């Protein structure tokens, strides 16, 4: 498999080609999983927890890259390791007041509110339940558009629609349907 430079990796992760996104994620796994795993294992964690943390880190990285909110001031490895370290430190704090952290690699200090933007709330979970009650097609369209942030043209191609306008109409109908559901549950969300 071809190894890409960091800049290429970032471009692939920001792009609209799912195959390229998966290739980039694969490369991240091959190169950066092990340092994160070592960090977790040497700090009272298990291999399962290392898997979970690395998935959370990649999700946060992917989401922030695609939202355009992330400007890297360090290497991808340092960034991923630093986010993982922060997440794991938070986890250790839940278990102990003053956790001792064995450092296994170079890291940068992240801003306190860095991870807060990625925290999913109870309210998000409630809304997710409503979204899951929609049909599979609606879920896919809305996820491609709002989560992956693909343009409508790309969404049409991924969904196999005739053109962008069909995708827009479908997305609009799904959103309308979802809003009606939200209206029904309005009291729960206190909107």
């Amino acid at each position, binding site marked *: 498999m071809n190894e890409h430079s960091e800049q290429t990796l970032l471009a692939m992760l920001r792009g609209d080609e799912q195959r390229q996104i998966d290739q980039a994620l694969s490369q991240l796994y091959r190169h950066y999983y092990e340092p994160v795993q070592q960090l977790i294992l040497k700090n009272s964690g298990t291999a399962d927890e290392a*898997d979970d943390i690395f998935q959370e880190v990649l999700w946060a990285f992917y989401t922030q890259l695609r939202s355009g909110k992330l400007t890297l001031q360090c290497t991808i490895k340092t960034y991923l390791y630093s986010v993982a370290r922060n997440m794991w430190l938070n986890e250790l704090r839940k278990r102990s007041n003053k956790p001792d952290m064995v450092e296994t690699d170079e890291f940068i200090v992240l801003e306190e509110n860095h991870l807060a933007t990625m925290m999913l709330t109870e309210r998000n979970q409630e809304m997710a339940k409503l979204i899951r009650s929609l049909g599979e097609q609606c879920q896919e369209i809305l996820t491609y558009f*709002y*989560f992956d942030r693909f343009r409508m043209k790309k969404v049409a191609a991924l969904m196999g629609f005739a053109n962008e306008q069909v995708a827009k109409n479908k997305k*609009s109908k799904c959103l309308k349907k979802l809003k009606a559901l939200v209206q029904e549950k309005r009291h729960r969300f206190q909107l």
Partner: protein
Amino acid sequence: MKDKEKKIDDFLLDRLPEAEKAAFEAALAADADLSAKVKVQEEIIGGLAVVGRDQFKERLRRIQAEVRAEGDVSAVPLKEERSRRWMLWAGLLALGLLLTLLWLTRTKTVEPAVIYADVFEVYDISISQRDPSERDLMEELDAYYRNREYDRFITRLDGQEGLYPHHPELYLSLGISYLETNQLEKADEVLLTLENSEYQAYKDHARWYRALAALKGKDIDKTKLLLEDLVNDTGADHHQEAKRLTQRL
């Protein structure tokens, strides 16, 4: 309507140019209806973050599995593999427990000697003469039986039992003597003769000790079969013992 929806999308997905963004924010502050719509759509995007995250993690698991299959990362196995290993160990443990349980059950059923020792009781019987000419013999046999000198009892009576068909107690005590000296086929034979005889009062006793002979011979099916009549007949002698023994088996 769709333009407004697109505008809200662009605003929330941070796709508006700075000037348009500022204008939209001003409109938001002035328009409560627009503000409510934006809030709902914002909530929806928050919910889609959860749905998207779950789908994304599923993709990551697949990618991780592929990377592992290529052997490109550390030797620590995948979560799924660890789970499979754990399941294998759990399976082996369960199998071990099952085998232990089976062994214990087997112990319970194929160690009939233990059960036999629990349930066997010598039937208290007096062997008395029917005819003055039998007195010495019967007294001698009675003494042997009471003293549990079964070998001497059997030897003393050897070849003569057929001569005393009118002595049901002799047949019963002989059957029990055979039983206690592990001559199980002979025990069954003598007790069967008694069971089929005219002495109805001894029928249930004969059946019970035949069942014990079968038990001692580790023939559980035969034991159960012989006990059946005693269990079904609430008025039968040994009814309760037969019931308890059947339950144990």
